[in-house]
């Protein structure tokens, strides 16, 4: 069942486009904002609401990396692993995160607090290395700063 708030936000997506299919990506991002990830049940509820098939939605959900079809932690850490951050040493940032959180890219901490992911170029190359936690961008991050940054969550 979609909540009233979810329906309202999905309707705003529908109003932008002539088809419900076009609203599907925005709708999944809306549901993910409320629920963390897109479960099979969520997909079925959305398919019902948008009058699309589950397969139509899933073909899209599995293409776009910002849509999660598996559970994730409360906070998503995205570390830029593209070329400018690689030159500026993102690997030591990654290794520090591996050590501190005791997980690797693609994994979630046992307490479900953090999911750690690599991300393609975050488009902030003059501040490399960069990473995002949820919607917030962290620039010129040093491994030493990570303890402080993570303790804010």
């Amino acid at each position, binding site marked *: 069942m979609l909540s009233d708030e979810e329906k309202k936000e999905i309707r705003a997506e529908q109003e932008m486009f002539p*088809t419900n299919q076009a609203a599907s990506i925005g709708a999944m991002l809306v549901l993910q904002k409320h629920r963390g990830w897109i479960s099979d049940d969520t997909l079925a509820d959305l398919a019902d609401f948008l009058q699309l098939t589950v397969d139509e939605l899933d073909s899209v959900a599995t293409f776009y*990396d910002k849509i999660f079809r598996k559970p994730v932690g409360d906070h998503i850490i995205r570390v830029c692993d593209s070329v400018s951050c690689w030159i500026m040493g993102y690997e030591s940032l990654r290794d520090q995160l591996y050590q501190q959180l005791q997980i690797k890219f693609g994994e979630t901490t046992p307490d479900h607090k953090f999911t750690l992911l690599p991300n393609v*170029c975050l*488009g902030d*190359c003059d501040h490399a290395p960069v990473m995002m936690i949820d919607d917030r961008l962290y620039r010129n991050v040093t491994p030493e700063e990570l303890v402080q940054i993570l303790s804010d969550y």
Partner: protein
Amino acid sequence: MERPLTQDLHTDGTPLALDEYERTGGYQTLRKALLEMSPQDITNVVKQSGLAGRGGAAFPTGSKWSFVPMGPDAPRPKYLVANADEMEPGTFKDRLLLEYNPHQLIEGMILASYAIEASVSFVFLRWEYKVAGERIERAIAEAYQAGYLGKNILGSKFDLELHLHVSGGRYMAGEETGLLNALEGKRANPRSKPPFPQTSGLWGKPTIVNNVETLSNVPHIIDKGAAWFQGLSLTDEPGTKIFGVSGKVNHPGLWELPLGTPMQEIINEYAGGMRQGLTIRGVLPGGASTDFLTPENLNVPMDFKSVQKLGSRLGTGTMIVMDDKTCPVGMVLNLEHFFAQESCGWCTPCWAGTQYIERTLHAIENGEGQIEDLDRLEAHTWKLGPGNTYCAFAPGAVEPLQSALKYYRADFEEHIKQKHCPWR
């Protein structure tokens, strides 16, 4: 030096507010254009100005618009899309325009929409650009409130809707026709051309897709004219360009400069040169999918033709500098990992080829390569080259590889001979 796109920006990190933008002349061009110029007049001025697309391919903007069917019998609604996907690794120029001057982009979008008689427009924004998203959303609301968007704009009888769409991710969503599929709620595989989007784009209707920087130039061109725009550059390619430098330079950043500014001036003067103890070994002039240039070519004027003459591309104009303590094999492996991951999987040479390239480079970097691998890699640079794949992704993917094999062959051979990366 005139810097039309950036000279009015705040330096404190805040965006230009609507009233501030208006005080710099903002939206006055729109008023003049909607009331005194026909759509064709706008397209003609843009054509005469010689503005070329800033999304990487340098397609002439005015001619692109002129392919859109016009008049009462044209298919409707027509669409205009600002491509704010900016996912090319090493590219961060559109972020500046989106975050600091959203109204300039919106005014450019309204003018472009008027020129092609579009009634619906979208900003297609990459998911990660959160600050840009908030600012664009606020600016759109302000523009509606001020009567620059909506019905009967400034009493001209011209109507335009503008929406912000936040993408679900993936590099291919920024490719023109992949973007159209993404906006329609499909997988971002490209479409075959023809038909071109100008005649059959979103939902089969005429659609123009332009880069953020391209559209941000439009209000200034309409305001000050084609001759003024041509006078901005140092070469015969008109206008300014937002150039960027990243890598181990002293002051990485972005600067709006005349097209044709020499690369070494940008790297040495604006970016402050290399960090102490480092020298330049190579530069990708315009993002991940451009060929390396070597230190002898640093005097190249940064314009489309000059960079092309050296066998590379200006691309997005955001340079990635490789220093002499960075391993070229490792760098190319990083780039090819990106392409292997982001291939949309539609055609075999690309999805299979990019994965083969990544695996082979990985083996070489980790001391498990064979000397024959270099020929195999080289063969892939033409197998994935122009004409052999469905879209321009794959030819772009092999550009850094083919130039690295040419200029840094000895480094590849050392990895193979020593059975490990000499840089580690």
